[in-house]
């Protein structure tokens, strides 16, 4: 907190706004995890935090350190890149696992295996 006093006001306001927006989106996503009814609805909720939520906070962090150190700090791009690559993969794996389990149990909520298709692998 000692360094924040050196930050000019024009940078402090966007940093504060972006931090609040990002944290707010993460909170809304987690509330969605509580509130939505079925699993397939809930799987949409965390994407709020993983896309724009963490994006806003990382942008705020980049702005904060770039202005303070008077040079570009681009570390945060790495986290953004990892997030962009990894989140869809985990969500797809999880959705497929859930679909497979529901089909095993014969749940009526999910569409059946298409008739022409070979049996599900593994």
């Amino acid at each position: 907190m000692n360094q924040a006093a050196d930050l000019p006001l024009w940078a402090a306001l966007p940093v504060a706004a972006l931090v609040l927006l990002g944290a707010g989106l993460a909170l809304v996503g987690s509330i969605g995890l509580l509130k939505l009814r079925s699993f397939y609805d809930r799987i949409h909720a965390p994407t709020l935090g993983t896309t724009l939520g963490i994006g806003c906070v990382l942008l705020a962090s980049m702005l904060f350190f770039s202005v303070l150190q008077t040079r570009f700090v681009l570390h945060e791009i790495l986290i953004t890149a990892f997030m962009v690559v990894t989140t869809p993969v985990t969500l797809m794996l999880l959705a497929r696992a859930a679909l497979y389990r529901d089909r095993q149990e014969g749940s009526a909520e999910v569409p059946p295996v298409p008739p022409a298709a070979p049996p599900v692998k593994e």
Partner: protein
Amino acid sequence: MSAAIIGSAVLIAQIMLVAAMGCATYRILRGPRAQDRVLALDTMYVNAAILLVVFGIRSGSIYYFEAALLITLLGFVATAAASKFLMRGEVIE
């Protein structure tokens, strides 16, 4: 002035993120099914990564960034492994 703005924004953000982690914890404990718990755990990892970046802004140190990066990677590996287990575990049963 700037210190007060950043300080209060960071404090509010931390409270919101802890509340978000609380929601995810509730979902982990309640379930009802295994995939719900895995999804909530993944959300928890993301919230923890955001919280660490916010900590970094608060303390003005760039070392929290490394921790956030590690949490992101660990979260990916953990969720991928858990989803794979959900698919394979039932076959063996």
